């Protein structure tokens, strides 16, 4: 192998790894705050990517309707839970955030889809749509189960994943789609060629990681999220609603997923079910990080990306196998290093 190929593979690996890093961080975040292992993270990726690609192609994405339907469901849940002590403010607030907001977004989507919107508008709409889907899903599928075991939450998570994947097939069909590049053009530096799209991936990933770091380190809501992850009862005693923390975590996870999708879809053709495998690679990184460590997850994600790039060069048939095999030595080491613990009840 010559240096050029090696550099090219490393570059390719880092581009993919950056995306896995974002997804892995979202998985760690959601797990720490809500104890949900977010299998549908991959669907957020596909939904973001395909909503963006559909809009760019002048088609109406079904996800906007799904957001409204889920919002109505979330509103119904809010009403049902508060049925014994309904008061006007609560109803109005829930109606605004769960029904009026997605209805406005749906109207905007219908309006813009008809006239091939500019890239920025497509991105914004896709992000908002998927973010709403994420938050309403939390309200409908996970918030009512918040007090149950990790296993129950995992089963719910698998259910949501299967449902979303099926809906994805309905909305986008079995054909793959590609979207327009966020930043076109390219330049070369020595042997390496940088496309605008890969630079976008690096830029957004770094900006997001720095943003998350600032959010968690400096803002009250960021700290509240960390507090919920560290000690749920302590957080509640400080007046921090675990449901609020869960909503923020799902909001961030769905935005991260959608953004990752929007960044990948100009590079690779995505199908309605492609997200699952992409999400799983983020998951591999998150597992290597023990589902708790953000820096370890980010580093592991880059390793996953690079291993994937090299294995697709040398043994492309086995590239997924090789990537997932990374888990075995890591889990083995972790099981030897950590004492056996029973699942905590809380």
């Amino acid at each position, binding site marked *: 192998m010559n240096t050029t190929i090696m550099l090219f593979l490393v570059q390719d690996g880092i581009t993919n790894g950056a995306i896995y890093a974002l997804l892995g961080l979202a998985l760690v975040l959601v797990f720490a705050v809500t104890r949900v292992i977010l299998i549908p993270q991959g669907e957020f990726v596909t939904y973001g990517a395909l909503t963006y690609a559909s809009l760019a192609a002048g088609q109406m994405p079904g996800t906007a309707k799904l957001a409204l339907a889920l919002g109505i469901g979330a509103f119904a849940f809010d009403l049902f839970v508060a049925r*014994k*002590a309904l008061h006007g403010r609560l109803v109005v607030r829930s109606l605004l955030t769960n029904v009026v907001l997605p209805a406005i977004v749906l109207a905007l989507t219908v309006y813009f889809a008809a006239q091939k919107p500019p890239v920025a508008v497509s991105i914004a709409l896709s992000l908002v749509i998927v973010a709403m889907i994420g938050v309403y899903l939390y309200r409908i599928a996970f918030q009512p189960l918040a007090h149950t075991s990790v296993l129950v939450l995992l089963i719910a998570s698998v259910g949501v994943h299967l449902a979303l994947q099926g809906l994805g097939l309905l909305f986008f069909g079995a054909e793959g789609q590609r979207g327009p590049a966020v930043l076109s053009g390219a330049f070369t530096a020595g042997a390496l060629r940088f496309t605008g799209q890969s630079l976008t991936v690096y830029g957004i990933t770094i900006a997001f990681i720095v943003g998350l770091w600032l959010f968690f380190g400096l803002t*009250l809501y960021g*700290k*509240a999220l*960390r*507090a919920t992850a*560290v*000690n749920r*009862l*302590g*957080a*509640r*005693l*400080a*007046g*921090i*609603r675990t449901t609020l923390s869960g909503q923020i975590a799902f909001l961030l996870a769905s935005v991260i997923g959608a953004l990752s999708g929007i960044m990948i879809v100009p590079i690779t053709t995505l199908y309605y079910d492609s997200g699952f495998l992409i999400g799983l690679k983020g998951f591999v990184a998150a597992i290597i990080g023990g589902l708790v460590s953000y820096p370890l997850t980010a580093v592991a994600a880059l390793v996953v990306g690079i291993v994937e790039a090299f294995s697709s060069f040398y043994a492309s048939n086995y590239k997924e196998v090789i990537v997932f095999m990374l888990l075995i030595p890591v889990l083995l080491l972790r099981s030897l290093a950590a004492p056996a613990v029973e699942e905590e009840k809380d």
Partner: protein
Amino acid sequence: MSALLSVTDAHVAYGKVEAVRSVSLEVGANEIVTIVGANGAGKTTLLSAIMGILPLKGRVSFAGQDLARLDIEDRVAMGLGLVPEHRELFVTMNVEDNLELGAFRIERSRAKSSIERVYALFPRLKERRKQLAGTLSGGEQQMLAMGRALMGEPKLLMLDEPSLGLAPIIVADIFRIVTELRASGVSVLLVEQNAQAALKIADQAYVMELGEFVLSGKASDIAANERVAASYLGFQHEGASAI
């Protein structure tokens, strides 16, 4: 009704086992009320249920409002605070962040002055403000747990075994601060195994045995009661811990 907190005919059960039976109590404004009793009498269970952590049958009202449908977080926002036995600190975050989060439901501008008040009450916390909560000593953690609860500007602070496992000198400090809280207008509901120290600073007292209140009245009367003296104070010397 003038009582700040009033609990009427409360029952708390773990499954079929009733840990608290038919308990009624009142805490007035500017009052320290203590519940004393042996390990396993149901004191912690009762506090948890008043806070909304455990389901309670019966009536609990706070500042004139029925708490039945309110979550823990709503009760905190109303001015009810609990410092639980295990403190439940955010151990991987520093002292200042722990305190700041205690004021999650309070306006930002007021939180700034609250933190100075807490530092004035516990100068030790100010020295350690950048240290992670998990690396503090037991006494400092207890101070931080109390400080965090005070950041929420409670009208009533419930303390669960604040002296448990602490050195006598720190225990004395914590009890002194409890009386200072009363002076600053915060009522305190204090659960203690260290009955002697608790009865000394309290206005009213309840004695709990096997999930029921067996005696109640002025703290000074309870301290003088022969039965209490025999069960809870009898074997102790002045100032010694009951544990």
